[in-house]
């Protein structure tokens, strides 16, 4: 977490602990602080405070609320959801569950992506134009491989078909400029160095209503009220991070470019995602004849924390649906997510060390598997 957000969170436990819906002085103070937090993030996103709701449960909770709120007003038209094949599991699972419940596989249409994870725009256009389609969901950028999607072009198709588009900015918004084309936008304060807190933008021009009866919290868009200190910490992180975002982004891009070049030079390693249309802070690659779990463990032993989309590193032992949809090798996968400079001031040193140690780590993991000379 951003150090300033941590300070704010600790202070807010004293100043903003009360339930903002009560009438006593402490509660009114908490309510005023919550309004302030909302105003800060809304202003940066270019929306009115009343268009932004906070969602406990992070980005995935905001995704679920966003999809539900778009689909419900259009239920007489149908219930079909169109989404990119590399969407966040919160999108895919919502669609899979709805399709399974209705015993109608047509209710979820996953649009294929190319080897860079970019959605096939012709297929997207056909999919959103199909009858009974009432919602579409596309990532601004993929958090696993960093690919930025052609959101503006995809939105054109949605406008033509009169299908509202949810844009998932969980991995991008906060660190890079938000997309302009969307009907509903989702973000997560954690991306800006805040605590995990889902952000949902539902502009007044968009028909939005949640199914079922909702408590009168967060404009009836969320399932539960937000804990005020969490919103305050999120807003502080947002303010700090956005103030230095261009510089942080430029440095991140320089560091990840360096890492990408180094990875390309390794034997039998495939880099994921495009060179240009990508997030500045994510690098993902797959190493042939290597074990993702072993790579992550060995790098961790050396003090380098990375993630992996390989099957052996997931609880279900299923490989990442993102890597599989791209046709990329799913084993030996390593994902490096660069923290913000404010969170990890030594990040450049860590990247240098990763570049230096990776060849040895990879050779060691391959040797342990007896995968030499293949």
């Amino acid at each position: 977490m951003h150090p300033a957000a941590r300070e704010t969170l600790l202070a807010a436990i004293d100043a903003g602990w009360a339930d903002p819906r009560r009438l006593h002085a402490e509660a009114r103070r908490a309510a005023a602080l919550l309004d302030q937090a909302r105003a800060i993030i809304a202003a940066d996103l270019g929306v009115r405070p009343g268009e932004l709701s906070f969602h406990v449960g992070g980005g995935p909770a905001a995704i679920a609320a966003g999809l539900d709120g778009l689909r419900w007003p259009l239920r007489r038209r149908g219930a079909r959801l169109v989404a990119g094949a590399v969407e966040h599991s919160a999108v895919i699972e919502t669609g899979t569950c709805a399709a399974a419940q209705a015993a109608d596989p047509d209710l979820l249409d996953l649009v294929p992506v190319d080897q860079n994870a970019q959605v096939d725009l012709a297929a997207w256009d056909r999919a959103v134009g199909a009858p009974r389609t009432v919602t579409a969901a596309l990532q601004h950028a993929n958090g696993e491989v960093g690919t930025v999607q052609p959101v503006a072009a995809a939105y054109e198709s949605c406008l033509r078909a009169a299908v509202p588009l949810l844009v998932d900015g969980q991995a991008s918004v906060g660190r890079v400029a938000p997309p302009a084309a969307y009907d509903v936008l989702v973000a997560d304060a954690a991306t800006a160095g805040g605590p995990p807190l889902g952000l949902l933008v539902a502009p007044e021009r968009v028909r939005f209503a949640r199914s079922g009866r909702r408590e009168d919290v967060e404009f009836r868009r969320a399932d539960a009220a937000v804990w005020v200190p969490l919103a305050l910490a999120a807003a502080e992180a947002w303010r700090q991070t956005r103030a230095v975002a261009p510089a942080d982004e430029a440095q991140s891009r320089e560091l990840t470019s360096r890492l990408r070049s180094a990875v390309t030079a390794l034997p039998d390693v495939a880099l994921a995602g495009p060179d240009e249309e990508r997030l500045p802070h994510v690098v993902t690659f797959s190493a042939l004849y290597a074990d993702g779990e072993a790579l992550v463990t060995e790098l961790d032993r050396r003090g380098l924390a990375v993630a992996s989309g390989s099957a052996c590193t997931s609880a279900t032992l299923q490989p990442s649906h993102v890597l599989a949809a791209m046709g990329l090798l799913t084993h030996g996968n390593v994902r490096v997510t660069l923290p913000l400079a404010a969170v990890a001031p030594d990040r450049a040193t860590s990247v240098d060390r990763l570049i230096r140690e990776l060849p040895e780590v990879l050779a060691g993991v391959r040797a342990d598997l007896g995968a030499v000379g293949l």
Partner: protein
Amino acid sequence: MSPQGPRPVTGDAPIIVVDARGLRCPRPVIELARVARTAAPGTVLELLATDPAAGPDVAAWCRMRGHLLLTETSEPAEDGHHSPVRRLRLRL
């Protein structure tokens, strides 16, 4: 785990079967690569695997090495294996 040796099939080329059932990623692809190292170009290999990553990974390996993936089929789970058995056939 070990190749079960050439086996005559219809047509002229023998198929070498690589049994990687029960092995987890990246072992099935490594076993395949071991057999491929000594096999002549044009040889057809058939991999049996229960690992869910075998499908995408063999396809990716074929692309990286310039082999041709011919068919991929799936059979119901056998005793002792939770995953269905994938049968991937490719030409070196």
